[in-house]
């Protein structure tokens, strides 16, 4: 897994992509509670596990793929 920083809030997560559609994201302890996108839903009492992803983080991961800092194995 490779570190990727969220360009919105700066949180550093570990990401693995075995192919373009595949994504595995490990958040560090406490980071999800600090995510700006999640905050309003957390405040509304909703479990963050019910939020599929943070859009800003997803965009950051896609950017990391584009600029080559996150390598994706060639599809074979």
């Amino acid at each position, binding site marked *: 897994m490779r570190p990727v920083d969220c360009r919105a809030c700066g949180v550093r997560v570990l990401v693995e992509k*075995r192919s373009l559609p*595949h994504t*595995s*994201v490990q*958040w560090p302890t406490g980071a999800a509670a600090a995510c700006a996108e999640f905050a309003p839903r957390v405040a509304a009492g909703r479990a963050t*596990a019910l939020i*599929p*992803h943070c859009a800003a983080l997803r965009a950051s991961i896609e950017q990391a793929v584009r600029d080559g800092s996150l390598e994706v194995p060639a599809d074979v």
Partner: protein
Amino acid sequence: MNHRVIEAAPPPERFARGWHCLGLADTYKDGKPHAVEAFGTKLVVFQGEGGGLSVLNGYCPHMGGDLTQGTVKGDAIACPFHDWRWGGDGKCAGIPYAKRVPRGARTLAWPTLERNQQLYVWNDPEGNPPPEGVTIPEIAGAGSPEWSNWTWNTMRVDGSHCREIVDNVVDMAHFFYIHYALPTYFKNVFEGHVATQYYEGVSRDDAYLGFVPGTENQKIAQRSEAAYHGPSYMIDYLWNEAEGTTVETVLINCHYPIGRNAFMLQWGVIVKKFPGMDDATADAMAAQVAEGVGLGFMQDVEIWKSKAPIDNPLLCDQDGPVYQLRRWYEQFYVDAAEVAPEMTDRFEFEIDTARAVQVWEQEVAANVEAGISYSMIPKSMRAG
């Protein structure tokens, strides 16, 4: 030659910490004590005259009388052996023939929650109350006039630990091979005490699922957001769309452990009424969905009956995150103080389904070509 050896530790000694559903609350509201075999013991569930449901250890601390054979008297359950009375809080509420109740006379009372028209009990091997924020969420459709009534079914599963059913959360491929579904999108998120599965799929031309009333060969697009809230209670919001009509369903998939190697599987369904639909039709529609779900569970049980427990599954890239799910599940089997951050830290996993979908579509086409058609629902049970 190296070969893979299946490893399996014996099932855990303890029962998971968390809320467990005991079924629809109304089933316990007939003024009688009810026996529930759970958590390696027997519980007594009763409604006192105050209206609330209580859950106590089924055996009387006096001389071991079976409280489930007793009588509800006032707000207490009276033991059939010597008529000692036990309140819902576990305190001895009286001994008619005694001058006084022994100091501190108390039996084990299980914290309860009545919500969504269902009854939940809190199990904690350490005996602590549920922490702040660990609860069962409200389901808006439950009890709403715009939705059907709950169906409720149970199935006792012997010879398997309940972790087998929890594995389903990440098991994309089994939906094709066991449940005749065709997943096209599959993602999991684990965080805190919640584990979610996001699922999209389509019906198969070689199978009839029966989730939407209608003809056998119509195309159904399925979307589901299913989450375990703790170790045993899953709320699954489902949207099945066919020919421009969407059926909205809430499916409860839950269980409680009976013993170390047996559990009670339970499922309940509500469907949202179509405009102008009457109660009976809505309930029949829910029953039809429940029937299909039940057949699906029977397919799982068929597998569990003969499969080996396995702690070290050998996975391919198109499998879901089994190890991370089990790491999440482990939190319910250790002391609260031992819950490690990695068990609850947020983890996301989105499967690349492209290859699987391609292969499955080919297999379905070949089946159609060969005239093979699977039906989850026997013809006799189908509505309309």
